[in-house]
């Protein structure tokens, strides 16, 4: 019978009455445990990443002839592990990528935050987000079959189809949305009052944006660039498809030549024949490169996080 008998627990209430339904409480404990386990999984994953990298990297580091790690080129199947070939390759692709994506992404971010009307934002922002969802193999193929012949080779006919520059532009396409959205967020978090102070002094929009908003948002903009750098250096498929030199490469500093990055080098070792032939350390070199890449990106992310935090603390 459901009735609101206002049962007044007069004198005689004991603490036992305030204990609650033990079944509900047990369920609460179980659920809490499960949810904690889910959260703790992330720690386990980090542990597994380190575990995966460390063992074989150690084998490599302890057995390799270090003269070959700073030598003439990256040919793991022949026992040549010149790491600077890969580092410079990664750096070139990343710098090309940032040189293109930086200004364009920042420009898009400024426009979205300072100029765009609500209507424009509503249409364009989702489109940019959709671009962010294009898989990197697709962009890699696009860089190989469109950017390279239709753009790069138009300027310089003798350029090979697979180049670090083409890959760099492909990487740029992937990170423009990232730069745009982080820099937009950074500028939007600049308080209105600052802008109004500038307008109140009779400043024009360009002046306000350039002299007030951008400097105030600089931490966030730096963060955007660092995150983009980290994304670019870790990008694999675009480079694997569009930069050529999958088997190995000599030291190469010209962006208009084929080249090899850390990521592409790893992918080509892994995609080779099933049983990796050649030198005994070919397989281990994959982990060695992976460990270097992991440390670089981790450091970049930690630094970027600092900058983002600084924005949050300030406003």
């Amino acid at each position, binding site marked *: 019978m459901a009735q609101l008998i206002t049962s007044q627990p007069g004198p005689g209430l004991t603490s036992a009455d305030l204990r609650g339904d033990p079944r509900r409480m047990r369920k609460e404990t179980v659920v809490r445990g499960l949810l904690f386990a889910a959260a703790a999984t992330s720690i386990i994953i980090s542990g597994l990443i380190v575990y995966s990298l460390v063992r074989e990297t150690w084998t490599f580091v302890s057995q390799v002839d270090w003269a070959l790690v700073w030598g003439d080129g990256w040919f793991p199947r022949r026992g040549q592990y010149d790491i600077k070939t890969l580092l410079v390759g990664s750096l070139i692709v990343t710098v090309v990528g940032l040189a293109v994506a930086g200004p364009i992404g920042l420009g*898009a971010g400024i426009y979205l935050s300072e100029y765009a009307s609500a209507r424009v934002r509503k249409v364009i922002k989702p489109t940019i987000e959709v671009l962010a969802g294009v898989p990197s193999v697709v962009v890699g193929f696009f860089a190989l079959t469109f950017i390279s012949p239709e753009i790069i080779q138009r300027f310089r006919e003798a350029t090979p189809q697979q180049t670090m520059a083409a890959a760099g532009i492909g990487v740029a396409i992937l990170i423009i949305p990232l730069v745009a959205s982080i820099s937009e967020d950074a500028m939007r978090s600049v308080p209105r009052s600052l802008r109004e102070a500038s307008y109140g002094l009779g400043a024009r929009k360009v002046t306000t944006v350039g002299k007030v908003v951008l400097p105030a948002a600089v931490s966030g903009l730096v963060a955007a660039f660092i995150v983009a750098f980290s994304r670019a250096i870790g990008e694999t498929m675009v480079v694997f498809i569009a930069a050529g030199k999958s088997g190995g490469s000599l030291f190469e500093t010209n962006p208009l030549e084929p080249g090899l990055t850390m990521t592409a080098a790893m992918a080509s070792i892994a995609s080779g024949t099933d049983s990796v032939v050649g030198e005994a350390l070919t397989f281990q070199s994959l982990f060695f490169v992976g460990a270097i890449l992991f440390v670089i990106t981790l450091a970049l992310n930690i630094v970027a996080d600092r900058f983002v935090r600084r924005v949050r603390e300030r406003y």
Partner: protein
Amino acid sequence: MSISAPLSSGISAEAVRRRLHGQRFDLPGIVVHVALLLSLLFSLVVLGVLVYDLVSGGWDVFASRFASFLSGTMRFAASESGIAQALRGTLWIGVFVVALAFPFGIGAAVYLEEYAPDNRLTRVIDINIRNLAGVPSIVYGILGFAVFVKTLSGLTGGRSVIAGGITLAILVLPVVIITAAEAIRAVPDDLRQGGYGLGATRWEVTRTQVLPYAAPGILTGTVLSLARALGEAAPLILVGAVVGRLGSNPGLFDIGSLDQRFTALPIVITYWAGLPQPDFRALTAAAIVVVLAIVLAANAAAILMRNRYESKRG
């Protein structure tokens, strides 16, 4: 009009007006405005060109043999090749992501937002998740190789779609957690207080108030993560997806062969993109159109859904 005449000063209304209107032509302002607009439109143009280029490149394949392209296997001859095996791999990867990354990710987000005490462990977990989100996908491939292909080969069968699926689930887990946590944070505290005030336990408040309210946001994040996983190639290469011709072609739902070698759409694209024969260009473009259709449709749906709910709730 009667008061527009100057009172005492000698300035005419016309002079004042001229000053207030200022310079009509603000050249730097216009140049900057246009430059910014162009950089914004760049993304749109790229997206348009990319989609047009690929659709036109793959069109012939669809027009001439749509069904055999979808149902065919990988062959030497481009004219006979199809993506059946790749579709199967991609489908199962999706299943693993949904089955693993979603519950673990949403569970972790609920723990961090609703349960976690503000202590050291919580902060470590939090920072750890944000760092995991920035780890390059190929490094997850190394994890997948070392753990699921080698150490746990007894369970996964080694270079199988099981190993690949779990690896990609782990890859997107941090993103699922972060987006779900954001959606949960946006739930008004009023609702929680109301629930607690009526004597609901934490889980009851979470299940009946927080999760329903956050559902659209959580769903958006999960769909975006799923799309990302379906388009990933690098980790699968490390985990041993076959970048080449795959012989076996078990049925789409043949669970018994999940521990066999496999391939997936992005992997087939990578393989075909590297082949020299021009016929395979068209085939690659066609496979890309399929992957784009899946991934972009998921993206667009998720983004539209989020925007609708955002504007609805103000």
